[in-house]
């Protein structure tokens, strides 16, 4: 296990490094600078401003300056929000996004696995058809459609839940459902197909033959194997959900990390942009690693090759 972890850590660092490089260079060669929307100043002042953030000189010089800062675990300073460090900005915005994403993740994975298993066990009955049609429907309805409709229905019309904001449990329900809905469907479809394959396998015949009911056989033996492909999908999903969905945050008026992404591109706020990308990338790499480890725990046949 240890050599595997070391090797993975090494390759992860390389991936993260590549992604940072791509993002930084792309952001800097894009036309428009971070101070273009400020009041017009003389070239000299502009140069001094850029120099303060090490954004003068060639793209290569800027890039090396940034990388050496990163190596010293310094994410830099925002060019838009004066006197805010990128780490402070992220610290302030990420908790809300993590909370929302975590909630959505739990909803998506649990109900997806349950629905998918149910559909597989009742294959070709109306339950299966309704579940799979519902899944395709919820994949086809993006969150910027479902969000306003959930608000209109549950907040404005029925008045059960608040329209937006963040903090109380009742404020979290609608955004979490809205964010989770399409992923419930992905997980359910994946789980259904995978479980259908497993149900045909020999060990399931044995389980039935020794007198287990279908539900017992599925719960004790099949789910453990069928859930493996789902877990592969859950890794990137978790990273996606935790870094926040810009749409859900903007529809429900939540101050989270999603809007940082959007605003930092609009403002050419290169350090905030790269900081957000780093967070996303690190989470992605960590969750993928986590998935591989869980794999070996669930399926003893898989060895982690170092």
């Amino acid at each position, binding site marked *: 296990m240890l050599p595997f972890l070391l090797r993975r850590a090494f390759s992860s660092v390389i*991936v*993260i490094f*590549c*992604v940072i490089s*791509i*993002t930084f260079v*792309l*952001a800097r*060669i*894009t*036309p*428009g600078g971070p101070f273009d929307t400020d009041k017009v100043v003389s070239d000299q002042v502009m140069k001094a401003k850029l120099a303060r953030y090490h954004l003068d000189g060639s793209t290569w010089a800027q890039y090396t300056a940034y990388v050496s800062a990163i190596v010293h675990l310094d994410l830099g300073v925002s060019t838009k929000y004066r006197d805010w460090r990128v780490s402070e900005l992220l610290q302030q915005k990420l908790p809300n996004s993590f909370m929302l994403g975590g909630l959505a993740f739990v909803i998506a994975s649990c109900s997806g696995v349950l629905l998918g298993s149910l559909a597989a066990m009742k294959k070709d009955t109306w339950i299966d058809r309704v579940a799979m049609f519902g899944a*395709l*429907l919820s*994949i*086809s*309805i*993006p969150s*910027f*459609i479902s*969000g*306003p*409709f959930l*608000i*209109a229905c549950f907040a*404005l019309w029925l008045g059960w839940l608040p329209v937006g904001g963040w903090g109380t449990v009742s404020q979290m329900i609608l955004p979490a459902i809205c964010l989770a809905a399409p992923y419930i469907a992905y997980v359910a479809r994946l789980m259904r*197909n995978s479980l*259908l*394959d497993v149900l045909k396998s020999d060990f399931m015949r044995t389980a039935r033959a020794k007198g287990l009911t279908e539900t017992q056989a599925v719960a004790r033996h099949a789910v453990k194997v069928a859930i493996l492909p789902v877990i592969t999908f859950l890794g990137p999903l978790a990273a996606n959900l935790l*870094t926040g969905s*810009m*749409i859900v945050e*903007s*529809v429900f008026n939540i101050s989270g990390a999603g809007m940082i*992404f*959007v605003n930092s*591109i*609009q403002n050419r706020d290169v350090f905030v*942009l790269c900081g957000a*990308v780093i967070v*996303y*990338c690190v989470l*992605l*790499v960590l969750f993928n690693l986590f998935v591989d480890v869980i794999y070996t725990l669930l399926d003893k046949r898989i060895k982690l090759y170092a």
Partner: protein
Amino acid sequence: MHEAAAPASIARPDGWQILKRNRAAVIALCFLLGLSLIAIVVPGLLPEALKLTSSESFVAPSSAHFLGTDVNGQDMLYRLLSGARVSLGVGLAGAFISLIIGTLYGMISGYAGGRVDSVMMRTVEVIQSVPRILFIMILIAALDDYVKGWIDGWRLAAQARSWTELAKNISEVKAYSKVLVMIVSLGLVEWLTMARIVRGQVLVLREMTFVTASLAMGQSSWGVLRRHLLPNLSTIILTYLTLTIPAVILDESFLSFLGLGIEDPAASWGSLLKDGAQVINPLESKWWLLVFPAVLMAASLLALNFLGDGLRDAFDPKSGE
């Protein structure tokens, strides 16, 4: 992970038969063809007066305006159908660009094999680790400035030669420059899945005897790729094209909803929904601004997904149960 598919099932001859028996997929195809036809034909037939902005803003659906009017007093039916043109057009063109890049990339990677393959696939993995939407936004920001600059240059050139008619046309085109930018940016980002799928198929096909045979007969590698591999890949490419279109449409509307995509006076489903979502309030519901684009968009995406699923069941050897 799925590369080791059984070679025998690559060309299932009855794929189209399977598809025809899939009633949902056939209905979806008819719906999409019908919608495209309406979106292309009907806006041209509507009276000119409906298309212009007017003082009658936020009129509820009535006999004069079947679907009501928006904030600028434009007819929603016209806005909705021109939005459908843009959304479907961007989806189709963007998916087509991604198809070309993805197919070429996947074929080269799979056929070359060895070190070239592993470098090319590592590159795909790295690009996949950058949040996709971010990539698209950066590309849009970069391309938008360039394209607007070019169009301005042409307009000035036309003005300098006092071709006023042309200059006027060019400034009208400028409003739609974002459409072109969106197509290119989305196409340049969405090809990764296609490349992986095509590569997987090429890895299987490359080992088959007809490839060895044609190489032995002196066919060049490029000839093998074009004459023998591409025809065998066509159905799987078509399948993933159908699944890429809704993905591109979703991304386009996502960006337009955030205000980063299609801009007025051009419309797409995403920008219409943005306008609709901005006016929800408990006092006075302007439901027609939200409901019509939402229903049309969801129905189109559903149809595309049904069709894509149907094609995948029919043609993708790896998806069969």
